[in-house]
């Protein structure tokens, strides 16, 4: 009892001391779950004395809804590019003049893809990656194309796709030769029919499949390049491929919110993160693509020479990114409801 009490007092005073030691400032980060190397945040706190708090979300929409409903206290968020365009249009972002900050010369112009902020004045391009096929080689063999993927169920193997209307309808649009941002009713009808034909073959629409692919319960899954984390651990058993027909890609930017209470800390974080070694430190743990060009050279060969995390230009050219669809999103939603409801 006595020891516990002593410990509690020591712990409480340690907390108080550490708080006063970190009087340099505060940075409240609102990010996707597991989407930044914790070591990056620790190093930032050590170097600047700014204390970092981290909150997480699961979808762009969840984050948007929370910010729109007046959640205050967050300084920086990590929206996908189409979502940051929406947020900028809605006046939720602060113009941080990112392109005037120290280290901005490291940012690859190829990653400045925002439609409303092509000069990257509001947000800092963060990370990107392809969405392809994560598979178990023992069950699926080697895969190269979406056709290979959809041939698996005929051999009694299971496949899953993402529980995300844009991603999964996106694959159908790509296979039918349309843009993943198509708002043409006929193109969407074609995509819908294409997915409905394959509905029976798809075992599930899910994100939570990593352990099932590892165990071989699922032979192959439509998933993110982040799967490279697992394929590097067991290269003989697990694989990831960007299908030859093309695929979708994601990119997130880091943005400062209009109501951010600690805008100075946010600017410091941007400058900290634009250092190539810090971006490389993050990429090492996240195993995706970084927008920081010199950082790519600092990566170990298994990531640098990896055709998935650092794809050659001809593959990058086949990757499509989502744009904001405005009201036309309702057409996609309609297709998605039909696909998911079909028996």
């Amino acid at each position: 009892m006595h020891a516990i009490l002593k410990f509690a007092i020591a712990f409480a005073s340690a907390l108080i001391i550490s708080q006063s030691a970190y009087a340099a400032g505060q940075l409240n980060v609102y990010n996707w779950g597991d989407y930044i190397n914790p070591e990056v945040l620790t190093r930032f706190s050590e170097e600047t004395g700014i204390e970092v708090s981290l909150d997480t979300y699961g979808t762009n929409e969840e984050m948007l809804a929370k910010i729109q409903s007046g959640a205050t206290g967050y300084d920086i968020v990590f929206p996908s590019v189409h979502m940051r365009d929406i947020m900028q249009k809605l006046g939720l972002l602060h113009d941080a003049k990112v392109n005037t900050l120290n280290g901005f010369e490291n940012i690859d112009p190829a990653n400045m893809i925002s439609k409303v902020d092509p000069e990257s004045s509001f947000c800092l391009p963060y990370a990107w990656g392809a969405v392809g096929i994560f598979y178990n080689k023992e069950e699926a063999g080697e895969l190269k194309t979406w056709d290979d993927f959809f041939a698996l169920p005929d051999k009694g193997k299971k496949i899953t796709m993402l529980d995300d209307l844009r991603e999964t309808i996106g694959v159908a649009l790509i296979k039918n030769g349309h843009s993943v941002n198509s708002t043409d009713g006929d193109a969407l009808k074609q995509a819908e029919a294409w997915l409905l034909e394959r509905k029976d073959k798809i075992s599930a629409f899910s994100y939570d499949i990593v352990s099932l692919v590892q165990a071989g319960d699922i032979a192959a899954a439509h998933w993110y390049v982040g799967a490279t984390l697992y394929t590097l651990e067991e290269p003989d058993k697990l694989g990831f491929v960007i299908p030859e027909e093309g695929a979708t890609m994601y990119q997130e930017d880091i943005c400062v919110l209009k109501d951010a209470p600690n805008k100075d800390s946010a600017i410091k974080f941007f400058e900290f993160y634009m250092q190539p070694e810090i971006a490389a430190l993050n990429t090492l743990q996240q195993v995706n693509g970084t927008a920081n060009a010199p950082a790519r050279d600092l990566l170990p060969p298994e990531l640098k020479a990896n055709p998935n995390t650092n794809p050659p230009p001809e593959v990058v050219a086949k990757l499509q990114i989502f744009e904001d669809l405005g009201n036309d999103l309702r057409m996609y939603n309609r297709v998605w409801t039909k696909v998911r409801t079909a028996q």
Partner: protein
Amino acid sequence: MATKRDLRSLSTLLTPSTLFLGVFFLGPLAVMVIFSFLEPGIYGGVVWNFYHWNYGRILGWADGEWEDFDPVYIDIFLRSVRLALTNVGITLLVCYPAALWVSGLSVRWRTFVVFIITLPFFVSLVVRLFCWVLILRPSGFLSTSLMGLGIISEPIDIIYTETAVLIGMAYILLPFMFLPLYASIEKLDHSLLEASADLGANPFQTFWRVILPCTLPGIAAGAVLVFIPSLGNFIVPDLLGGAKVMMIGNLIEQQFLSARNWPFGSALSVMIMLVMFMLIVFYLRRIGRSEIVR
């Protein structure tokens, strides 16, 4: 009968709960009803224009611009009702014999068993459901143990099926059926059973004509308590059904998040609430009252 003082103390006692319900239940409910008649905003939220398509769309009517006529939402609703009713049946079949058995135990054991049944509530629902994914998958616990025992030769494959959804829903809602059943079975007057036996009824007749009617309020309460969360559930169909079995709860979740159509989500919610409300009124009229009379 009630004196002024009784009234005063009564109103003092009821004020906090009335305020609480008013602010945290009726307030959001009013927002939901109002939203269900408005136009959806492009990026979530609402535009303050009257918009009647939300309810029409549930029935399949098309607004001509974004929708074609298609009663897909009615299908989803009927499927949800079917699954929820099946789930009521499963939990009833599992819990009734269990509750009968528990009510026959000594007081100390009864308390222990009731404690055990509420124990899973201490663990997060998502964690428990993910355990079921691990149990039900082909290389999982269920399949390997049955194969190890030589009962089956091929791995059973029920993950991402309607069966898996039913197993998961029955699992999470069992306590809601068990507890009201147990409460009404425990209250059962044993002299009635003796009387029934004395008058020449066999055990089956005693069960059918005495025990069952006496515990009907418990069955009805359990059925309502299981039916309502089953109908609105969206986590189980997502995790165990692989999002292939779409229920009304998934549809509503989708409207508020990825589809960014809050008014349609609100209209669907209002529709479910009305169905639930009618069910509860029916319950109170038919069964609840007979219990009070007794």
